[in-house]
C-alpha cells in the first residue's frame, strides 16, 4: 500500500560515510586475508592497518564541513571532522606499537587488527552523528571491540580488566538507553537538532523540569563513565593496569575524544538552551574529578597506574571546557587532546618498551617506580625522553600539553570562570608532584637492581613512534598556531 520510495543518490550524500566504510572494509579485508592464508606475519597486518587508516584519514580530511548525509543521520560538521582526524592519528600512532621485539598474545591474532579497525569505525560513527541511535550503536561497536582487545592481552589482569570494563559499560549502556528514552519522551525525537527545537519550546513547562534535568543526568552517567569522571571513574585505573600499555594509552585518548564529542553535542545543547543546572553539574563533576584523581595519583606506586589517574584528571580538566560552552572552550578540547595525544601515547609507549614478561621489580606491578630508578645512568636517552613526556604532562612550557593547558585556562577566563582557571592551575601544581616523582626516580636515584636492560621491548618501529611523539611534544610551539586556527575555523564553522 505504500508508494515506492524514491531516494536520489545525491541526497544520500554517501561520501559522508566513506571514512567509516573504509575502516570497515579494511577490517573485512584483514579477516579475508587471514582466511586465505593464516600464516601471515603480524607486520603485514600492522602495515595494512596503517595504510587503511591513512586512506581513512585522507577520506576524512577531504570531507566538506557541515554536511548531513543519509537521511540526516550522518552529521559531518567541524567537530566531527577534527575528532575523526584525531582518532585516526592516534590510531596510526598506536598501531606500530604492535611491532615489539617480544611477542605478546594479542598481536598473534589477525582479528586483533580487524577488531581494531571496526572499533575505529565505531568511534567515527559515534562522532559523526547527532542521532542518539547511531551514537549508541557506534559506541557499543567500539566498546565491544575494545573489551575484546583488552582481554586478548591474555593474562589474568587483562581478563579482570575486561570484565570490570564490560560490566560497568553494560550498566552505563542501560543509563544511556534510559536517558535517550527520557529525551524521546520529552521531545518525540532522538535527533539532537530536533530535540533542541522541541525542548526549547517546552522549557517553560515547569512540570517537566525534573524530566529535563533527569535526562541530562542519565546521559551524563553514561558519558561520565566513558570519560571516567568521578565517581564513575573507578574502572579506569584497573583497566589501564590490566590492559597492555599501548592500549591503555589509546584508551586514555580515543574513546575520550569520541565521548567528549558526544558530550559537547548533548550537554552543549542543554547549556545552549539555558539549563544552567547542567553547566553546574558538569563543573562540579569535573572539578571533583581533576582534584580527586590527582590526589589519588599522588600515592601510586606504579607508573602506569599513576598515568591512569593522571589521564582521569586530564579528562576532568578538559571536560570542564564543555561547561564553558564557548567556541574557544570547544576548540580548547580538541587542541588539548591533539597535544596531549602525542605526549600521553609517548609516555605509554615508553612504558611499553620497558615491559617485561616477568615482573622483576614487584610482585604486582609491571612498571613500579623502582624500575626506573637511576635510568639516567642506564639509558640516558630513554630517561630524557620519558622526562620530557612527564614535564609536558605536568604542563611545563614549552612542551605540548602546556599550550593546551593555557588555552583551556584562557577559555575559562574568557568565559568568566576565573575560579575554574585557578582550580586548574592549582591542580596542575599538585599533578606536577607525581610526574616529578618519576623524574626524580629516573634522574636522582641510583638503580635498584642490576637486571637486564629496562628497555627490553625496544624495536625500531617503537623508536619511530616515540621519536615522533617526542618531536611533537617538544616542537609544539611551532605548530600550535596552525592547529588553533584550523580547529577554531572548523568549530566556529559548525556553530559551537
Amino acid at each position: 500500500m505504500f508508494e515506492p520510495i524514491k531516494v536520489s543518490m545525491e541526497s544520500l550524500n554517501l561520501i559522508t560515510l566513506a571514512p567509516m566504510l573504509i575502516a570497515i572494509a579494511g577490517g573485512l579485508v584483514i579477516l579475508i586475508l587471514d582466511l586465505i592464508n593464516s600464516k601471515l606475519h603480524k607486520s603485514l597486518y600492522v602495515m595494512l592497518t596503517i595504510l587503511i587508516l591513512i586512506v581513512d584519514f585522507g577520506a576524512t580530511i577531504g570531507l566538506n564541513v557541515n554536511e548531513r548525509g543519509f537521511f540526516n543521520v550522518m552529521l559531518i560538521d567541524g567537530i566531527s571532522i577534527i575528532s575523526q582526524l584525531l582518532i585516526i592519528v592516534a590510531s596510526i600512532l598506536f598501531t606500530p606499537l604492535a611491532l615489539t621485539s617480544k611477542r605478546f598474545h594479542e598481536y598473534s591474532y589477525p582479528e586483533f587488527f580487524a577488531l581494531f579497525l571496526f572499533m575505529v569505525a565505531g568511534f567515527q560513527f559515534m562522532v559523526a552523528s547527532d542521532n542518539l541511535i547511531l551514537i549508541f550503536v557506534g559506541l557499543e561497536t567500539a566498546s565491544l571491540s575494545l573489551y575484546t582487545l583488552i582481554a586478548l592481552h591474555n593474562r589474568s589482569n587483562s581478563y579482570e580488566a575486561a570484565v570490570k570494563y564490560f560490566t560497568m559499560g553494560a550498566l552505563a549502556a542501560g543509563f544511556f538507553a534510559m536517558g535517550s528514552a527520557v529525551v524521546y519522551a520529552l521531545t518525540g525525537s532522538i535527533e539532537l537538532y530536533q530535540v533542541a527545537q522541541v525542548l526549547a519550546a517546552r522549557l517553560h513547562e515547569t512540570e517537566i523540569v525534573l524530566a529535563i534535568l533527569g535526562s541530562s543526568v542519565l546521559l551524563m552517567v553514561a558519558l561520565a563513565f566513558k570519560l571516567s569522571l568521578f565517581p564513575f571513574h573507578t574502572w579506569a585505573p584497573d583497566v589501564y593496569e590490566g590492559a597492555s600499555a599501548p592500549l591503555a594509552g589509546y584508551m586514555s585518548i580515543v574513546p575520550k575524544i569520541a565521548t567528549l564529542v558526544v558530550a559537547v553535542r548533548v550537554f552543549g545543547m542543554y547549556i545552549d538552551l539555558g539549563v544552567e543546572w547542567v553547566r553546574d553539574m558538569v563543573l562540579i563533576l569535573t572539578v571533583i574529578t581533576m582534584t580527586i584523581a590527582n590526589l589519588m595519583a599522588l600515592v601510586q606506586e606504579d607508573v602506569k597506574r599513576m598515568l591512569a589517574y593522571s589521564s582521569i584528571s586530564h579528562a576532568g580538566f578538559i571536560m570542564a571546557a564543555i561547561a564553558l560552552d564557548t567556541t574557544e572552550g570547544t576548540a580548547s578540547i580538541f587542541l588539548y587532546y591533539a597535544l596531549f595525544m602525542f605526549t600521553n601515547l609517548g609516555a605509554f609507549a615508553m612504558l611499553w618498551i620497558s615491559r617485561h614478561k616477568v615482573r622483576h621489580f614487584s610482585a604486582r606491578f609491571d612498571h613500579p617506580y623502582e624500575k626506573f630508578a637511576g635510568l639516567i645512568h642506564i639509558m640516558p636517552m630513554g630517561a630524557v625522553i620519558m622526562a620530557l613526556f612527564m614535564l609536558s604532562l605536568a604542563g611545563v612550557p614549552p612542551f605540548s600539553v602546556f599550550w593546551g593547558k593555557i588555552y583551556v585556562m584562557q577559555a575559562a577566563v574568557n568565559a568568566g570562570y576565573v575560579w575554574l582557571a585557578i582550580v586548574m592551575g592549582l591542580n596542575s601544581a599538585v599533578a606536577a608532584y607525581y610526574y616529578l616523582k618519576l623524574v626524580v626516580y629516573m634522574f636522582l636515584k641510583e638503580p635498584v637492581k642490576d637486571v637486564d636492560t629496562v628497555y627490553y621491548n625496544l624495536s625500531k618501529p617503537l623508536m619511530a613512534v616515540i621519536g615522533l611523539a617526542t618531536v611533537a611534544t617538544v616542537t609544539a610551539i611551532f605548530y600550535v598556531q596552525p592547529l588553533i586556527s584550523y580547529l577554531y575555523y572548523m568549530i566556529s564553522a559548525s556553530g559551537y
Partner: protein
Amino acid sequence: MYEMIAFYLFSALTIVLFLITVMSKNVLYAMTSLASGMVLISGFFFILGADFLGVVQLIVYVGAVMALYSFAMMFFDATRDIKEKNTPASLIFLLGGLSALVLVLMFAAPIHSEAIQALYPIHDGAGNAQDVGIVLFTKYLVPFEVAAVMLLVAMIAGIILAGKKMDQSLTKDTSVDAEDEILIQKDAK
C-alpha cells in the same frame, strides 16, 4: 478495558518475575524468570502495537540470548545455589528505592505533549512490520549496517575469546621470544 487488565497483569507479572531474577539464589530460577519476563515484555509490545518488535523480542531474547545463557550456565556448572556475599540490603534498597522514586516522579509528570509531531508516523492502515521496514531501511539503514558490524564484532570476539588459542598465553611465555622476529632490535643499549 482489556488493555488495562493486560497492562496491570503484565506489569505485576514482569515486576515479580524480574524481582525473582534479581533476588533468587538459584541461577536456573533466575534465568527462567528472566526468560518469562522477557516474554511478558513482548506482550507489552503487542499491546502497544509494536508487533514486529514483539516478535524480535521473542526471537532474539527468548530464543537466542536465553539459549546462549543456558549454554553458558551449563559451561559454568552454575546450576547449584549461588553463594554470594551480597552488598548490604539497606544500601541496595536505598539506592534502588531512590532511583525508582526519582524516575517515577519524573515520569509521573505530564511528559507527554500533544504538540509534538511524529517525525516517522505510524500508519494506521499498514502493518507494523511494513512501517518498521520502511523506516529501518531508509532512515536507519546506516545504524542497521553498523549494528551488523557490531554483531560481527561480537561474533569474532566470542569466537576468539572462547577459542583454544587463548589457553596458552604468549604474553607470559618468555620462551617464544627467541625465535622472533625480523624486527628485533637486539640489546637496546
